[in-house]
């Protein structure tokens, strides 16, 4: 007997056209199906050292993200990180991390379906986000590598500043909030339409 698995779809698959029509100053693209693993462990513990050795990465400190490689680490709390990797890596990464951790005290949980990721870029990104986000996105306050879990237009998000001041940003948003956030983004961009954008 075969079990039919439902077709996989990303929370914002229906929004591709609307997002593509945004002003050039705010390029928004969904990065669907990224591998996302939740890591819970004490910083500095044997488990933390095992994870860092297995990944060849350092667990970033508070409010920071390591975004340079294929495998990215986002600080989510004092004993919690979100590992983000390309699509399809969850099984081998979970196995690799669990074997590295062994009997030490830590958890690795696949949460890939929990959030989808929006990649924003363009010179208006900071201005548009400022309409719904209380965090000061000035590069002097929020430099490249900042990782902030907060609310954008009341929707819970994790915002990662990827490069060049705030002109390149990742927004990780829970799947059930994604279409609301897309609606808000499209609306927040309205005033820049047809202008200098």
């Amino acid at each position, binding site marked *: 007997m075969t079990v039919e698995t439902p077709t996989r779809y990303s929370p914002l698959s229906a929004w591709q056209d609307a997002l593509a029509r945004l002003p050039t100053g705010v390029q928004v693209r969904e990065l669907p199906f990224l591998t996302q693993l939740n890591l819970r462990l004490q910083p500095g513990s044997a488990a933390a050292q095992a994870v860092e050795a297995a990944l060849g990465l350092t667990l970033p400190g508070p409010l920071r993200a390591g975004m340079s490689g294929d495998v990215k680490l986002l600080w989510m*709390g004092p004993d919690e990180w979100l590992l983000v990797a390309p699509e399809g890596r969850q099984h081998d990464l979970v196995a690799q991390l669990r074997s590295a951790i062994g009997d030490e005290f830590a958890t690795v949980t696949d949460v890939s379906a929990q959030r989808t990721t929006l990649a924003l870029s363009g010179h208006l990104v900071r201005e548009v986000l400022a309409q719904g986000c*209380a965090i000061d996105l000035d590069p002097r306050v929020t430099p490249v590598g900042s990782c902030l879990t907060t*609310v954008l237009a009341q929707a819970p998000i994790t915002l990662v500043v990827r490069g060049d001041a705030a002109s390149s940003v990742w927004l990780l948003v829970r799947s059930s909030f994604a279409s609301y956030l897309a609606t808000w983004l499209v609306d927040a961009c309205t005033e820049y339409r047809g202008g200098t954008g």
Partner: protein
Amino acid sequence: MQLIACPWCGEREETEFRYGGQAHVAYPDDPYALDDEQWAQYVFFRDNPKGPFAERWVHSAGCRRWFNALRDTVTHEFLRVYVISAQHPLTTSTAPAAQQRKGQEAI
């Protein structure tokens, strides 16, 4: 909007936080030894001071961690935030600072 300083995330808008009531209410060592009145005291009765009050808060929209705060219930000013494993700040050697600060505001 009032800003609250999460020990981990720094200052954030108060809407990112949830209130958790009085801090330092310890679970009874032996709950079965309590009579109904004592159990009701533990479950339902809380202090309601006018002035500095040690409270539990959680940064629910951010790092989702619980912490304690000493808040002045008159001015809503957060006198300090501290980790939940720490002692009540008014019963430790740091108490005079908080008392003094309150005194200064009253002037």
